[in-house]
Every structure is written in C-alpha cells, then in structure tokens.
C-alpha cells in the first residue's frame, strides 16, 4: 500500500499526486503516440472512434455522473454538432473554426434544454430530454437542403497541408488531441468550485442551495458543457460516418452513451475511457459472437446488438453498479490491503427505500 506524505495544500490539487502516477500516465501517453505506427489502418480508425466516444463520454459523465442529471436525449447534441459542422464545412469554413462553431451550437442547444430543465429532476428530465431528442430528429428529417432529410447529406472532407482529414493517422492524432484537451478541462473543473457545485447538486439539492450554490446556473452550465463536448464528438464523428443520415443519431445512440458511463463507472473520468473502449469495440465483439453462434447452427439472431446493450446494462447495474472502474478499485484495494481486505468495505448498505417525496 502506498502512503503519500502531503506537505503542501497545493499537492492535493496537483494533476498527479506522486511520481508513480506521473510515470504510468507518461508511459500511456507515449504508447498512444506510437500506437498508430504499430497497428493496421483499420485499428487506427477504430481507436479514433474510441476517442470520439470518450469525448462524448466526458460530456455525458459531467452531466450524469457528476451533476446527477439524466439525459436520454444526448444523441440530439451529437446530431446538432455533426450537422452544423457538415453545413459549415460545405460553406468553406476552415476546419478548426467549424469544429468550434459546431461545439458552440451544441452548447447553445444544451443551455436551452438545461434552462428548460431547471425545475425538473428525475423523471421529468429524462422524459423531457427524450422529447427534445425526438423533436430534433424530426427537424433533421425535415430539414430540407441543410440536413438532406432522410436521404442524408455527404460530408465534406477538407484537406490540411495536403492531407485529408480522414487520413487514418491524421484523424487519430486529431481525435486524441481533442480528447486530451477535454479530459484536461474536465479534471480542472472537478478540482475547482464549478465541479464541486456539480457534485453538490447531484448529492443533495437542498444542501447545495443552502451552501450558496445557484442551482439554476449550475444545472444550465452542466448541460451546456455536456452538450458542447457531445456536439464536438458529433462533429468529429461526422467525418468518420462520411454520409450523415438521421438513423446515425437515433435514440439508440443516446442509450449507447449512457451505457458507456454506466459500464465505465458513474462518477469517474477513468470510467469514461473504459466505457468508451467497451462501446467502441462492442460491435466487433458482437460480430465475433455472431460468427460463433453461426458455428453452432444459430445463423440469425435479429436484434442481437440491441439485446446485448440491454442485457449488459441490466447486468452491470445489478452486479457492478460502480462499473469497470469500480471493479478495478476493488481489485486494487484487494492487493493493497492483501491479508486484511474486507469484502464488507464495498458492500451496499442501503436496503430500504429513501423517499424523495412529500405527500
């Protein structure tokens, strides 16, 4: 077990607490930078997709995992980011500016929803965000030339110094860079008053309010930030998809985003990365499973993907509500405290219903 001697208060807000962390994260960074030169182009593309999922995941995690607000409609922000980005590129706006404006558009939409959601919690918010997603989907389907309707619209893939955006290595580093910035921003927020206000709102609204947290502003900011990151991910994803159609941003995508945060582990940024790897590679795993099933003579399992998402969600929530990251913490604790580890440390304590209502 490692004990860290803290001698200055600034140490507690440092990005890395000790040299061990610095070493491992440094190693990870080097591995990520070198990786594309060691993989086939297919896997470079898949890795970029994982980064995109992680960018959106950071956004969803800030809202769901840290602020405790549920959104079943995040696919809408993904769509807003993607279609705005596509439209801007079509009018010749340079790539970085288009990315920024797409992020801004999603943030504005998020602020709007967040503001509308001020008086809502729980069920209201869940259903309202779902409603918002449906309305955006309607607008996308009937958006005329701007969105191409149900037939969709082709993505402009601009060149940068003679390299196309979707060149696998360029795109990999672009997504990695954006993800690194997003995680850096999220870590910063979480070690400063804004992030603490998010967590306060999640854990007890009345208490947050009595501690001087402006509920309305905090929720709106959380929504806007979350939408911004999701929109940014959408814009990047648009390059990957190539041809934008409404189905690419359906309710299923919202659910995949929630699956990401639940499987990764609610309330942790590490969880986002685990979840993104999981969601990013799930289609491959399912394809393998399909092949296996075919070998057993089950040649067609309709809805396998959807069913698998659902089943994984259910199983995680029942057996490992803290997600992969929670499991990792438990394993680490087991080794750290080896002969002394008590299972009860992580046992669920609440077995009764704590009501949130007054009658």
């Amino acid at each position, binding site marked *: 077990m490692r004990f860290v001697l803290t001698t200055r*208060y600034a140490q*507690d807000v440092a990005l890395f607490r000790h040299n061990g962390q610095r070493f491992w994260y440094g190693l990870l960074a080097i591995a990520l930078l070198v990786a594309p030169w060691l993989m086939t182009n297919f896997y470079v593309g898949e890795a970029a997709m994982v980064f995109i999922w992680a960018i959106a995941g950071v956004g969803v995690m800030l809202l769901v995992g840290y602020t405790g607000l549920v959104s079943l409609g995040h696919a809408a922000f993904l769509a807003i980011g993607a279609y705005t980005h596509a439209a801007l590129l079509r009018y010749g706006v340079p790539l970085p500016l288009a990315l920024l404006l797409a992020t801004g558009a999603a943030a504005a939409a998020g602020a709007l929803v967040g503001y509308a959601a001020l008086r809502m919690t729980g069920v209201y918010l869940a259903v309202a965000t779902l409603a918002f997603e449906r309305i955006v989907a309607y607008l996308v389907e009937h958006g005329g030339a701007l969105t191409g309707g149900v037939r969709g619209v082709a993505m402009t893939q601009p060149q940068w110094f003679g390299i196309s955006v979707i060149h696998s290595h360029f795109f990999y580093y672009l997504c990695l860079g954006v993800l690194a910035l997003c995680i850096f921003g999220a870590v*910063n927020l979480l070690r*400063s008053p804004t992030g603490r206000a998010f967590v306060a709102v999640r*854990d007890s609204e009345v*208490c947050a309010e009595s*501690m*001087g947290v*402006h509920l309305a502003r905090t929720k709106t900011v959380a929504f806007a930030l979350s939408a911004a990151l999701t929109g940014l991910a959408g814009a990047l994803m648009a390059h990957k998809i190539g041809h934008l159609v409404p189905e690419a941003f359906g309710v299923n995508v919202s659910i995949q985003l929630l699956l990401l945060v639940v499987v990764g582990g609610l309330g942790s940024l590490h969880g986002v990365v685990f979840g993104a790897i999981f969601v990013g590679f799930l289609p491959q795993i399912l394809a393998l499973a399909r092949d296996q099933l075919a070998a057993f003579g089950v040649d067609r399992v309709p809805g396998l993907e959807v069913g698998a998402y659902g089943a994984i969600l259910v199983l995680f929530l029942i057996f490992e509500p803290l997600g992969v990251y929670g499991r990792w913490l438990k394993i680490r604790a087991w080794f750290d405290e080896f002969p002394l580890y008590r299972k009860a440390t992580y046992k669920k304590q609440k077995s009764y219903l704590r009501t949130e209502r007054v009658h």
Partner: protein
Amino acid sequence: MLFEARDLSIRFGGVHAVRDVSFAIEEGEVFSIIGPNGAGKTTVFNLISRFYDPDGGTLAFRGEDITSTPAHHVAELGIARTFQNTELFERETVLANLLIGRHVHRRTNLLKDLLFLPAARRQEVAFREKVEEVIDLLHLQSHRRALVGSLPYGARKMVEIARALCTEPRLLLLDEPSSGLNPEETEDLAFWIEDIVADLGVTIVMVEHDMNLVATVSNRVLAMADGSVLATGEPAAIQSHPEVLRAYLGGTDEPPPAVAEAAP
C-alpha cells in the same frame, strides 16, 4: 440586532404550520427554539433559509430585508445551517464536504476553473487553509480523508456543523444538533457550541429537544406549539412557564420529568 422575524406565517394546504411568529436575535447569543413535534420549528428554519416563501411577515438580517432573497443567496449574506437528518455528500471525503462550504467565497469563473489558471490554484489553496482552520477548531483531523458515508453518526453531525462554519457565517442555524448523539457526545456538543460563539463570534439559533443542552448553552429560548409562539425568555423562565408545560403535557399541570430535571 442581527436578525429579526416579524409576524411570520405559512400555510400548507389547510395546516397553519407557522402563525405570526416574531423574534429578534442579538449578535453573539445562542437562541434556542423548543416545542413539541410538529410545532413548526423546522419550518421556521426553512423559512429563514428561504426554502419556503412565507405567506405573511418579514425577515431581516443585519437590517436588510431578506424576505424575498433567493435561497442560494442566503449563505452569501452570512447565514449557514445544518439539517435534522444531515444532508451531507455521503460518497465524498470530509475534506470535499467542507470545501463546498467555501463556495460562497468563490472568485473564479467557469473559464478560470476550466483552465485551472493560477488564480484558481491560489483559490484552492486558500480554501484549503480556511477549511483546515475549521478542522482544527472542531478536532476533525483524524476524519479528514474519510468518506462521510463511513463515519459514525456523531462524527457526521460534526462534519455538517464544520461545513456550515466553512462559509464563515454570522448566523448559524442548527436543526436538532443533538439528535442521534449519545449523552457523552451531547456534552461535547455543548462545549463546541460555546467555542464557536466565543472564538468565532458566530450567533447561533438552534432547534433542540434536549432540555439539558438548551439550558446549558442558550441565552434565550423561544417555545412554540402548533405554529405559534408560546413564550420567549431565559431558559429557566421558559421551563417553568405554565403555557409551555401545558403544551408539552397536553393539559395536566404536572411538569414533565425531563423538564423538571433540567431545571437549574
């Protein structure tokens, strides 16, 4: 005068939960509100915290009318509170819980936080220094990095008081601070309360059932029943006040044992 409530009233449906309640609190005193269950004590707190809008009456803090101040602004003015059943962030450490108490003193904006500019870093360190002062005052050092959910109830109560103190309040509202504490912890609580008043110059209003504690620390006591004020005065006078006795006993003239024992 630090705080004044005048003719405060609120109704929930047909129930007149608080009816024409008036009281004034002087700087530096400990003011207790007592009364049987359902007398409207916590409702008075929720009115002061601005969780409820009163149907009538006014609230004034340091000469300023706060009857329509938004709830999140109350802490900034210098009024902090604790809750009957503790409202802590259970999955966070004690330190994180206390840091939220510094929120009202925040000087950075979203952008500075997002980039963690030097101003944000300096602010975090300053917050931490202040939090450590409160930790020292209430002897919470050993719990500093413990998860609140893993602490015994008595310690949680203290963490909640510490969090309220981190806002640097002028007026501290304690809602049944001794409920769930054992006699020993309650005795300690009396000392803490005296320390808080003496060292920090904080004025305290508390809702309390433990008459021993009330008699030990309070300068004045307000007794309530059915939403109305029965009497206000020195603890000893209130404990022998006939109306108060009647409210507690429901009609007989026999004094309740707890109250009789508590009488100095």
